[in-house]
């Protein structure tokens, strides 16, 4: 029972946070058809921005918004590289991701400098803020009971409820946006750029907006992850592209026949399913070193399965 509750807790907590990232990847990968690697850099960007700001006493909710804005800025750089300089999508992602390694390091090192007797001392590469207030420890989150007793053991309720609420807010906002004129133009830009041109609009602008939104959400996810852990470092970016893509692909292919679910809901569920697989494997004793390997392997399985399903139906690959 304890093991089961453990799996459930980790799956729900991390699954809902990664759902925010997956929704971002859904915008770039599924809607815009743009394989965007910059999320490997924008997730830790959101984390270190949040970490440094919290250390400087900024309101944690405001930190989420600022992280989103920073991610959106980085995403629009990816978009500008593609639209204005005509660089291929994959290369744009690589360029932004690589330069973010330096930028993130710069942010965290500058942000953790402390004034000592001999002037400023150099900063560190990890921003720890275990005791500072985060969105998990300030109002209005504190209204949620911290834990409940289930079958004799304590279950961390507050964290799960908060990340659930965040994931749902992001999902519904995205659903709403996609029905607005701007959002529908974004959908059109992904599936038929010529059509957008005929509507007297520049499809490049839509693409930049989409990349900004996608990376904004990735950075928001990074911000929430950091606040949940109480620290932010640069390593957490590794594997984020795969995680996001896998959630999108798993979600959209497992629930492909479920007509009453919107694609965004499928993506959220996909993040939960994918996280559950990883958590179960870890609980069964998979060494931590193999986590990234397993993430890639699971994505491969999902891709092959989707392909096989599509071939039967004569559809296209995801």
């Amino acid at each position, binding site marked *: 029972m304890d093991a089961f509750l453990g799996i459930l807790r980790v799956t729900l907590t991390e699954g809902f946070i990664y759902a925010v990232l997956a929704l971002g990847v859904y915008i770039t990968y599924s809607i815009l058809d743009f394989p965007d690697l910059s999320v490997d850099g924008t997730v830790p960007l959101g984390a270190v921005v949040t970490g440094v700001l919290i250390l400087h006493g900024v309101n944690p909710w405001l930190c989420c918004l600022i992280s989103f804005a920073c991610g959106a800025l980085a995403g629009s750089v990816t978009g500008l590289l593609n639209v204005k300089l005509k660089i291929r999508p994959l290369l744009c992602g690589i360029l932004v991701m690589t330069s973010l390694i330096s930028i993130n390091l710069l942010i965290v090192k500058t942000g953790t400098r402390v004034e000592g007797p001999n002037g400023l001392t150099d900063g560190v590469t990890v921003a720890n803020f275990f005791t500072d207030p985060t969105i998990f420890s300030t109002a209005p989150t504190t209204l949620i009971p911290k834990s409940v007793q289930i079958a004799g053991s304590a279950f961390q309720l507050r964290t799960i409820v908060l990340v659930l609420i965040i994931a749902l807010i992001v999902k519904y906002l995205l659903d709403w*946006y996609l029905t*607005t*004129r*701007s959002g529908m133009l974004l*959908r059109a830009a992904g599936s038929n750029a010529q*059509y957008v041109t*005929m*509507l*007297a609009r520049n499809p490049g602008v839509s693409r930049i907006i989409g990349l900004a939104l996608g990376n904004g959400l990735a950075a928001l996810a990074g911000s929430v992850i950091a606040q949940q852990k109480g620290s932010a470092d640069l390593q957490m970016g590794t594997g984020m592209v795969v995680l996001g893509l896998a959630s999108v692909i798993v979600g959209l292919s497992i629930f492909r026949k479920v007509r009453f679910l919107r694609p965004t809901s499928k993506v959220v569920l996909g993040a939960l399913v994918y996280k559950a697989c990883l958590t179960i494997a870890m609980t069964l004793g998979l060494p931590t070193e193999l986590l990234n390997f397993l993430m890639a392997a699971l994505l491969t399985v999902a891709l092959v399965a989707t392909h096989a399903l599509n071939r039967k139906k004569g559809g296209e690959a995801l």
Partner: protein
Amino acid sequence: MIQLQDIVKRFHAGTPDETTLFDHFNFSVERGQFVSIVGSNGSGKTTLLNLLCGSLPVDEGKILFDGRDITHMREHRRAAFIGRVFQDPQKGSCADLTILENMALADCKRGRYGLTPAVSRRRIEYYRTLLERCGMGLEDRLRVQVGSLSGGQRQALALVIANMTDIDLLILDEHTAALDPKSSERIMQLTDRFVREKGVTTLMVTHNLRFAVEYGNRLVMMHEGKCIFDRTGEEKAQLQVGDLLSLFNEISIECGN
């Protein structure tokens, strides 16, 4: 209304394959004309349309629209007053969106693409009446994804969409070529109705000589980047498909085929 002045267009410039398609080409269209353009492959028909719409840049020369120089205007800016239907039925609408969403999106063309809801319930009746005139039953399938429609239905939708906002020029780029005979007949009749009702200036490239003869009030034949035949009004009305065919044959003989 449209004037192309001394247009030069080269392909593969600076390579051994360099070809000059248009060499100081001049062409003009009066307001209200419905021009059918015929010609063999490579004669420059589609390139002419692409230059007009801004999909391709000109190397030299000027394009005037109502006296305004639009030579360097971007393609999407020109689309504000040019409507276009392509040969490929998939290009004229968005497969992942429903008919209703496609029409709603096109309906905003004049306005802003901001954060207001794209689909307005008050406009649905209007969309329905527009679709009813196509006679394809599309008005009852507003919530169907466009990707599941047939080529003829999609081309009809593309025509409606291109004509939804007031445009000054309608460009038809072999828009019936990918359809079966019955559908292409239907789309052509629909096109004629739209053009007559709105009186919009129209350029239609076609390989169907009968359509070129039966519809429109001006006929142009192009060959190797030149207009070699141009008839308007009464002269055009008396043209027969046979006349065009023999003209085609003459050209082929000259070319040594």
